[in-house]
């Protein structure tokens, strides 16, 4: 890893954003300068040579901003997103493109504005939910972020319509890189559903490093869907840090279909009793797409429940990496934690690296993990063939059923339909 790339990264971004948070930003910056991007074979990035990839594809020179309008995004937005859509252009919140219903009980602002209007909350949570100096990309995002969105759902507010957040990269003329940073707060007894997706315009390389801090207060429900279906020269690193308090419910749905190299870090701290945390993931990959999912659930208090299901179908030269960690602390008695990762490889050039990890310090717990890699059941294919269904179609049906276990969990109908189309088209070709 040459120092120049890191210098370019750090050097080209001003740090005047969020003046009242300069301490933490400075700390993150020093940490990044000290540690740099993940080194070759570093344990947490062992199977994802991200530094090398970035070095090869990006110069991180100053990027030229480009004006876009809604017509530029035609066909890229999910149909039912018209109601609530929040759009970032190259990491900066666009108030002209975004629109959403203003309701009581909901505060949506750019993070910049929120840092003034809701300074207490921003200062309390920005960079405070986890140690942002450990992971290179968390540090990088904290140091370089230019903007983000602040969403706060007030007490007893149930928002039925999902919020779509789009990260648009305007790579028509030159490479882009963006570092949006979001803060989501669901106060007690509230409910919100978020859908996030990156859209790259143009043919140049794009790098998106998005980080979100999600605070789920008592009895609150947060559903977070992440769709990754971008160009194959779009590179994406996502960081989600979730803190849950008692009786809260958080579910993440991470669906990766295409892209260059994708790394998702999902960290959930279950710091309350009777919390429920769900993590669902599907990676349906072809060509040379590389997807790396790292999840951590840290059970700190008794009587909580976590459930994780990640499924993968790998074709062509794609590469799937899964690393799930479950920590059960000494105090977290009566924790129930389940983790499962199932994979099907369709090609001999596809690679799978999986590491489901349990670390347990409490004795009265039920924890299990399972992990499989295999092929479709030949008998099942035969069964369908015997009923006049072509072999290829039979395989498509079975794979669809395999993937559907995850798709079916998504609570947004519009997304389900959207995915259904893509998945069945992909699997039947």
């Amino acid at each position: 890893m040459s120092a120049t790339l890191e210098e370019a990264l750090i050097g080209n971004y001003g740090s005047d954003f969020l003046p009242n948070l300069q301490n933490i930003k400075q700390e993150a910056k020093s940490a990044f300068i000290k540690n740099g991007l993940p080194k070759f074979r570093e344990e947490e990035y062992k199977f994802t040579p991200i530094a090398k990839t970035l070095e090869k594809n990006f110069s991180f020179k100053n990027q030229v901003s480009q004006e876009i309008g809604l017509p530029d995004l035609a066909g890229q937005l999910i149909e039912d997103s018209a109601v609530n859509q929040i759009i970032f252009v190259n990491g900066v919140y666009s108030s002209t493109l975004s629109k959403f219903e203003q309701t009581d009980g909901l505060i949506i602002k750019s993070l910049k504005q929120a840092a003034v209007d809701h300074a207490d909350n921003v200062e309390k949570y920005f960079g405070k939910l986890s140690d942002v100096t450990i992971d290179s990309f968390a540090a990088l995002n904290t140091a370089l972020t230019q903007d983000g969105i602040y969403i706060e759902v007030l007490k007893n507010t149930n928002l039925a319509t999902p919020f779509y957040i789009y990260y648009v990269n305007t790579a028509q003329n030159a490479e882009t890189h963006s570092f949006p940073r979001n803060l989501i707060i669901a106060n007690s007894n509230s409910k919100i559903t978020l859908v996030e997706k990156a859209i790259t315009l143009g043919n140049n390389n794009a790098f998106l490093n998005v980080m979100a801090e999600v605070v789920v207060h008592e009895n609150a429900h947060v559903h977070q869907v992440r769709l990754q279906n971008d160009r194959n020269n779009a590179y994406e690193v996502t960081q989600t840090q979730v803190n849950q308090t008692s009786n809260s419910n958080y579910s993440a749905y991470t669906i990766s279909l295409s892209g260059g190299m994708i790394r998702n870090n999902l960290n959930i701290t279950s710091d309350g009793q009777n919390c429920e945390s769900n993590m669902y993931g599907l990676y349906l990959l072809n060509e040379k797409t590389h997807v790396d999912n790292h999840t951590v659930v840290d059970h700190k208090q008794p009587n909580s429940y976590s459930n994780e299901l990640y499924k993968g179908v790998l074709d062509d030269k794609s590469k799937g990496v899964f690393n799930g960690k479950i920590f059960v602390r000494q105090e977290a008695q009566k924790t129930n934690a389940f983790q499962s990762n199932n994979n099907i490889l369709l090609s001999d050039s596809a690679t799978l690296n999986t590491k489901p990890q349990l670390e347990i310090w409490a004795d009265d717990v039920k924890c299990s993990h399972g992990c499989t890699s295999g092929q479709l059941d030949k008998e099942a294919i035969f069964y369908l063939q015997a009923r006049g269904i072509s072999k290829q179609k039979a395989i498509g049906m079975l794979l669809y059923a395999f993937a559907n276990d995850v798709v079916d969990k998504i609570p947004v109908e519009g997304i389900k339909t959207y995915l259904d189309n893509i998945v069945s088209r992909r699997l039947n070709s």
Partner: protein
Amino acid sequence: MSNDDQILDEFTSKEYEHGWSVDLEADEAPLGLSEDIVRFISAKKNEPNWLLEWRLSAYRHWLTLKEPDWANVAYPSVDFQAIKYYSAPKKTKKLDSLDDVDPELLETFSKLGISLTEQKRLTGVAVDAVIDSVSVATTFKETLGELGIIFSSFSEAVQEHPELVKKYLGSVVPVKDNYFAALNSAVFSDGSFCYIPKGVRCPMELSTYFRINAANTGQFERTLIVAEENSYVSYLEGCTAPQRDENQLHAAVVEILAEKEAEVKYSTVQNWYPGDKNGKGGIYNFVTKRGICNGDHSKISWTQVETGSAVTWKYPSCILKGDYSQGEFYSVAVTNNYQQADTGTKMIHIGKNTKSRIVSKGISAGYSQNSYRGQVEVMKRAENARNFSQCDSLLMGNLCGAHTFPYIDINNKSAQVEHEATTSKIGEDQIFYCTQRGIDEESAVALIVNGYAKEVLNQLPMEFAVEAQKLLALTLEGSVG
């Protein structure tokens, strides 16, 4: 479970039973490690020049390496200059019979329950007893000799079969493999060598007992087992060590080579001094064990019962190179007090239609940390590879930890790999079921633990199964009747 605490307390305060030290007049190297020490050891053992060169290359490579820190264990770093790298019980002449053996030594054996005479007469086990670093007596050699089987101490093998040693030494665990393997290659003092010729089925279990005896002597054994085409051998290794306050380093290397249609079964019961109940003292056990299924249809099976050592770092592995070859790993690891174990296996599937099976049972009690770390790798050309892994953890008390780190790397679509892990404690309902039927709580726990570990214990040869059960009971005494 009302008297849970009491049971745990009793069990955690249990002192190590096999702790004593016999005063043998040792022939020792000075403290520290340098090229001179490596030369000293080599000269002491009257080794040929190529072996000295081999050791020196290992030593030079070792100097360039850094002590690994990725394992889930914490211990004060080892001062490699404060260790004596060679210590041999003095002997004046070559021993022909047991009568010539130092009576004190024989007493040590009888305390350990390894009466050579008894074993000779009754069990038919040939014992290559190693005290500290030099093999003292080898029994049944003649019987084995008739079949062409070579089973001797490593030093003897170097003198008598240099061509075999030269051919196979380092072929499975190369000099540059890892930090501790390099260290071992540089300073290994003795060990066992076993060679089973083509088509021979070894009629008895081969067994060697290791015992660390002199204070401050790290023991660096080297074991090399070669099974030629269509042969079979079952090899047993077990050990106990006397009580010491300073940590002692043990960095052994075991290499196994199985040719076409050969089968090697390697069983270990490890009961080194784990330190006292405050975590003081105990053995550091950093071992590299690896087998290669070189030929088609070959099989290597590792079975281990780990109850001792303060820190264990051990991953018996199989490289499944031959088509249709099989690897197995069965393990029970028990940690108590402040013991730390990071153990598991690697199954590297290279050949077609290779199969592997991993069964690992961890039991943690007291303040101990027990980790399973395993890797299953299916290479691109390994068509139809099959793996099944199961690793279960049992926690006793809430001050200990159980950790699982399974790495699964698949590069072939036809691979079928399954991994499964659970963590649990002994169910109150299970205990209740037993007590209701008139079985007291302690026996109930024993029953449940034995049942839990049975899948692994069943894999041990008869002679060892008994010892293993005894050890399990001893380690968990108080909670196990």
